[in-house]
């Protein structure tokens, strides 16, 4: 740790800017994480799990490096409070840099080098984006920094060991026991220590150490049944469930691990090493700025990703209006950019008559217009349905299928399947995807909560109790579990409590065998529009009518409109239903005397009139001008939300 005396020397040597810069940058990072990425941190916690019991510890210890995972999972809990969690993480990173200075005796003029591992770890965590839904173990957020700190311990301890045999004894214990507890980090630490040769140039000790580094993992391998020999190098390191992401995940980690032996060999460790840097003021400041730029460039800041995650959190908390607000805020933040894109495109198209050239220009600009992702739209629709506003207002908001910028497209069903299926009353599907998630990625707060909720919704009290028992052992979710426990054994109470009051009204679907083929949106569409359940509730008919409108199929619309009006004893049709009825009726007359409001009729007439004078040459070209006038209507949705690809 930095003592007051050497801190003073340090600051004096580096100058005020380079001395304080790491701390200034740390504060900026903290603010960015807590404010800008707070929802992502909260989701990270939700996708992790720490249980304060022996079984959890035992499970963690079933693989070398398990202590790192256990401690990482413990600290990840605090991301539930993003301000606190991110502060702990940043303090650990700063601490790791301080230890690095001590371990490698990094001179003040090179102090910035001590932050390289921290920067690599930050870069890994802030660049994950959709990777947070695919990480295995899910303790990664903290386990990397904890692992790195643990890897410094041999360097620090061996500084105080005076004889070769003590060093050898320590290394033996560290390599064997350390490997079991810390995995690869233990080996990396000893390797660095070996290379640095602190107070020990004894060739025998070095040879034995090398032999131990090679032999110990091979011998210990026979005591474990939880990994492949080929994975020995990765034990204790974060893992991801998709092969395509491996390199991306592992590169920063290998930087961290390679840093240790490289630093041990670094030239500044010689008394006269790198003297040309003088006091290092320029070098350190430059490094810090490069680090800041690296983190900035690596940071995954996709607007729609952040909106998806925030909406997902709102839905987890049953805050339906908040989910819709997040959706609208994301769209609003891009209004000006869209207008600019339209202006630029119009200017560029001016005078261009060659259709191919026009097409190229339109295509070039299409990516600049904002669109929500499918998950955002699905979340928004769900929220609108739960607030009973979908048939009046869902189509007033943007639709779209912005393709997430991601190494691997995470299927909707992986990211949002549990939520969608639970709230749409498809409880067995919810159960299924909870377990697909658990088996592939490990148990999480999120899975346990959805398993508990689907058990409560279906009246499986003992099973719900089992999941709630697990949540009781968490720091921040036991209160939620306690609230759910009060419902167990009391079906009437469940039927009256949110979210079950609404879920159970949708659980009237007929029994059949079904498979979603990992396409949640298409499955929902087919589920709600294919056949009316024998025991359909008015609420079911209402949701089915909405999905029928989403299907853009007039036959489906008329069929479900009929069910809806009868079962709901409708006197006045919701606005979007009026729009759809008017629109479909204009295409093929199916009904007389439709109860249409004047405003809707006027809007529809205006739309038709506008369409007469403004041919829709292509969806991409015409969407924006039409959206400005009719973006709040079903008929706009009908024409401009076709061919949307779900995934």
């Amino acid at each position: 740790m930095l003592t007051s005396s050497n801190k003073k020397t340090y600051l004096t040597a580096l100058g005020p800017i380079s001395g304080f810069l790491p701390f200034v940058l740390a504060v900026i990072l903290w603010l960015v994480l807590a404010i800008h990425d707070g929802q992502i941190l909260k989701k990270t916690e939700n996708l992790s799990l720490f249980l304060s019991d022996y079984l959890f510890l035992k499970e963690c210890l079933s693989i070398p490096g398990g202590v790192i995972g256990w401690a990482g999972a413990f600290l990840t809990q605090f991301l539930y409070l993003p301000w606190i969690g991110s502060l702990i993480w940043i303090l650990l990173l700063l601490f790791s840099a301080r230890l690095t200075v001590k371990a490698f005796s990094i001179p003040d003029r090179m102090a910035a080098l001590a932050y390289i591992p921290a920067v690599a770890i930050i870069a890994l965590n802030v660049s994950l984006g959709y990777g947070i839904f695919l990480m295995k173990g899910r303790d990664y957020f903290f386990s990397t920094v904890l692992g790195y700190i643990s890897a410094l311990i041999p360097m620090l301890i061996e500084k105080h060991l005076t004889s070769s045999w003590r060093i050898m004894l320590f290394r033996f214990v560290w390599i064997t026991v350390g490997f079991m507890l810390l995995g690869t980090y233990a080996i990396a630490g000893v390797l660095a220590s070996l290379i640095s040769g602190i107070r020990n140039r004894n060739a025998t000790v070095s040879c034995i150490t090398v032999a131990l580094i090679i032999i110990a993992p091979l011998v210990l391998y026979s005591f474990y049944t939880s990994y492949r020999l080929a994975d020995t190098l990765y034990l204790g390191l974060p893992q991801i469930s998709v092969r395509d992401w491996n390199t991306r995940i592992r590169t920063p980690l290998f930087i961290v691990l390679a840093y240790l032996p490289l630093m041990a060999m670094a030239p500044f460790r010689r008394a006269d090493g790198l003297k040309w840097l003088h006091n290092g003021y320029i070098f350190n400041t430059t490094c810090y700025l490069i680090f800041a730029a690296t983190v900035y460039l690596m940071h995954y800041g996709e607007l729609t990703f952040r909106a998806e995650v925030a909406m997902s959190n709102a839905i987890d908390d049953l805050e339906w209006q908040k989910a819709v607000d997040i959706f609208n805020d994301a769209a609003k933040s891009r209004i000006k950019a869209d207008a600019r894109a339209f202006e630029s495109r119009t200017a560029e198209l001016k005078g261009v008559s060659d259709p191919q050239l026009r097409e190229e220009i339109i295509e070039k600009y299409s990516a600049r217009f904002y669109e929500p992702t499918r998950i955002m739209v699905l979340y928004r629709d769900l929220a609108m349905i739960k607030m009973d506003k979908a048939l009046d207002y869902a189509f007033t908001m943007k639709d779209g299928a912005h393709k997430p910028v991601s190494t691997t497209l995470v299927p909707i069903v992986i990211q949002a399947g549990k939520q969608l299926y639970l709230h749409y009353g498809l409880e067995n599907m919810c159960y299924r995807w909870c377990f697909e998630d658990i088996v592939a990625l490990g148990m999480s707060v999120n899975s346990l909560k959805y398993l508990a909720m689907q058990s409560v919704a279906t009246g499986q009290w003992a099973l719900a109790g089992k999941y709630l028992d697990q949540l009781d052992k968490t720091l921040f979710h036991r209160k939620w579990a306690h609230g759910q426990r009060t419902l167990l054994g009391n079906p009437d109470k469940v039927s009256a409590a949110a979210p079950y009051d609404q879920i159970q009204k949708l659980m009237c679907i007929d029994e059949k065998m079904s498979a979603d083929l990992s396409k949640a949106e298409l499955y929902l569409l087919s589920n709600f529009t294919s056949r009316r359940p024998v025991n359909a509730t008015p609420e079911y008919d209402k949701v089915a009518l909405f999905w029928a409108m989403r299907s853009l199929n007039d036959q489906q619309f008329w069929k479900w409109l009929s069910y809806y009006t009868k079962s709901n004893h409708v006197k006045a049709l919701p606005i979007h239903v009026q729009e759809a009825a008017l629109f479909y009726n204009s295409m093929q007359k199916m009904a007389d005397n439709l109860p249409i409001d004047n405003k809707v009729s006027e809007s529809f007439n205006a739309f038709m009139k506008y369409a007469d004078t403004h041919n829709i040459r292509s969806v991409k070209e015409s969407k924006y001008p039409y959206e400005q006038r009719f973006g709040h209507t079903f008929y706009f949705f009908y024409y401009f939300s076709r061919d949307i690809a779900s995934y």
Partner: protein
Amino acid sequence: MRTPSVILLAVTFAACSGVPGTFDKSNLKPSLFPDYTDVTAPSNIAPLNFIIQEEGDRFITVLENGRKSITVTGKQVRIKDRQWKGLKKDGKIDVSVYKKTGSQWTAMQPFSITLEDDIDPFISYRQIMPSVDSYQDLSIIQRSLESFRSKVVYSNSMVQDLGNGQCINCHHYRNYSTDNMQFHVRQYLGGTVMVIDGNLRKVNLKTDSTISAGVYPAWHPTHDYIAYSTNMTYQSVHTVDPNRIEVVDLESDLILYNIKDNAVSVIENDPDRFECFPAWSPDGRMLYYVSARYETPFDDDRMDRIFADCRSIKYNLYCKPFDPDTRTWGKSVLLFDAASAGKSVTLPRVSPDGRWLIFALGEYGVFHIWHRDSDLWMMDLADGSIRPLDEINSPEVESYHSWSSNGKWIIFSTRREDGAYTRLYLSHLEADGHFSKPFALPQKKPGFNRNYMYSFNIPEFMKEPVHITPRKFASFIEAAPASPVRYEPKLQK
């Protein structure tokens, strides 16, 4: 009437010996988890640790056998191995539970644990999440019944990596001995892994003339044969049914693997029937199996039709005579026409003395672990009578079951505790052909079943542990290609 000081003295004295001096008596037995009240347990079983599920401030449990007594305080009653051995000696343990609420002690009605007949010292089971499609986390575990020690026999995490998943299933032993055993690995590095007289072998039991590799095995008790079902199995999700998942066969037959000749022959392969779950009689001269008639074309829609009709597919119980020396088969005989009663039989297993046959009976289908209506039934092979094992069954699933080698015990899988997680229960066969009250496999920490998030399926008794190490299995599976088998036509009497 005693003076307060006398009462205080009595309480103090009694407290030193563990039992409260004064207490009310309750006519209720304590609620325990697992419920070990009045059970009959094997005389070599590990301590039956339990949790007292009663409201109260303090608890004292006294376990005694007339000569020896131990006292445990607290809700969680964990008995040390040494003490348990001492208690077991007389064949009966009386258990008294006292609870204190406020200042009042109450003695619950005592219960006893009867100890009879040894049980095989080991079992093995497959540890699995109750999941649908994913299987990244499967292990075959062996567990000592005399202690709480458990070890991995083989785990798929020792071999598989991202994109190369491996399923493992159907561990099986010849005559309860681990020198001859087998299990399947599917997909990555797939094949049937066999231990033949201690030597490893990996074979691919699929031939051009059979529909799949071997699936559900039955090792012949006297000769070097293994009967298998061959199955083309698929699963789907129920939209509403609390059974959640349906597993069906698109096709299934029976084959016989001749270990010495490394050859496979067909036992039953009627295209309009699903044959499954073979099981030998103890003398190896009769093969029991289940079979359902279902006629539908072998076209692209076959699977859809089978799933749509799955509730009408009902399996009956058959037996088929076999001469192991000449390897010839007699004609199949219908033993139990479950279909006509609107039911479906699976998993026939014959007791080692050949007298009893236990099977699982549900409303339809063959994969009863996902059928809540599945119960265990027993046929008396002496007179063909059948009865439900009401003394064992619960409203939830009872499914896979195995006889101990002495025929005195069965172990079976059930989801009675929560409806989703398969747990293992033991029960004793009494002289009158009835079973004793079933009880959960004891655990070191009595709350284990509630906290553990894996299911245990396919419990099989073993006389000895598996001697081959998990690493040796893993290395062999990685190194050895699955050798092909020869197909030979079946012999008919």
